């Protein structure tokens, strides 16, 4: 998985690309650190270019949500498609995280 961060005044948009699986633990740690460091309250993960996510990837997104919440920030998952959208649905993540089309 790769990511690119676009920091704005009101929100930060992180565009994830590729596959998000248990092997991406180090990248997720780095990403969470960067999201905590910037000032924006809204931290948006743009998932439109993410091709595949597994259960550990879902778990790491939940860790990100929890860490943002502890820092008084909001995590938003945006524009999931295909397999990623389907897994978010099957795992019922909409009950826990803000999901936008």
């Amino acid at each position, binding site marked *: 998985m790769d990511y690119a961060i676009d920091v704005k005044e009101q929100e930060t948009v992180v565009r994830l690309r590729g596959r998000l699986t*248990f*092997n991406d633990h180090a990248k997720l740690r780095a990403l969470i650190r960067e999201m905590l460091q910037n000032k924006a309250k809204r931290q948006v993960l743009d998932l439109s270019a993410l091709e595949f996510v*597994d*259960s*550990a990837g879902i778990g790491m997104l939940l*860790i990100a949500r929890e860490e943002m919440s502890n820092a008084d920030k909001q995590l938003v998952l945006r524009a999931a498609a295909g397999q990623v959208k389907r897994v978010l649905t099957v*795992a019922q993540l909409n009950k826990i995280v803000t999901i936008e089309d």
Partner: protein
Amino acid sequence: MVPSRPHVAALHGLGVPAERLDRLSAAFRLPPWRPGAAPSGDGREDSVLVLVGSADAAEAPECWARPFAAWIETGGILSDADLANAVERSRRADLYAFVTTATANQLHLAGRILQAITARRTLAGAQRDDMELALHEAISNAVVHGNLQVEGMKGLSVAALERFSHDLAERMADPAYANRRVEVAVWLEADAVTVEVADEGSGFARPEHIDYGASGRGLDLIAAIAEEIQLLDGGRRIRMRFPL
């Protein structure tokens, strides 16, 4: 009655020394594979068993295309007797892989097996995505929790993620864990695909109450996708059935 399986007709080596390949070819009575060779002509599909010397030797997608249908890694510490057992088991399945934990992870084995399945059965887009996820989750469980014996992420903190990260890297670098085997067997029926994934870990019992942290959703996802799942051999083997 035993259903008719593809006929394993030849042996192919990827990164296996010629001398060992010749010896194994004679021992298993499988001639070396010749591209474009005439089929054996009894109406069954001829398939080819691949002996894989190392993960790097099997990176190319064509290593997982037809007529290849079984992949057994000879590297690591596999004895000739264990290899013979694996070859025997491969003859009872339509697709078969027996590789180290490190190789299963490096090659992204679930995707390779899915490629081999879709070369033989038509899957609709969503069905393909679902089956890839189920295979990936089953193989990840075999790799991470089974063979590497790394516990899942407990709780929802970066500390849990760091612990997982550290343990995973440490175990993957230890040959005593990383050389443990993952076995995948696939049976292709007219109306269903059955897949078994086995590891060499200490087993697993599905808890009655799952305390969800960042981990623990894999088996639930598999159960949501597959028509039927069974945990066998003390939890070291999972059997999944997918209707077509």
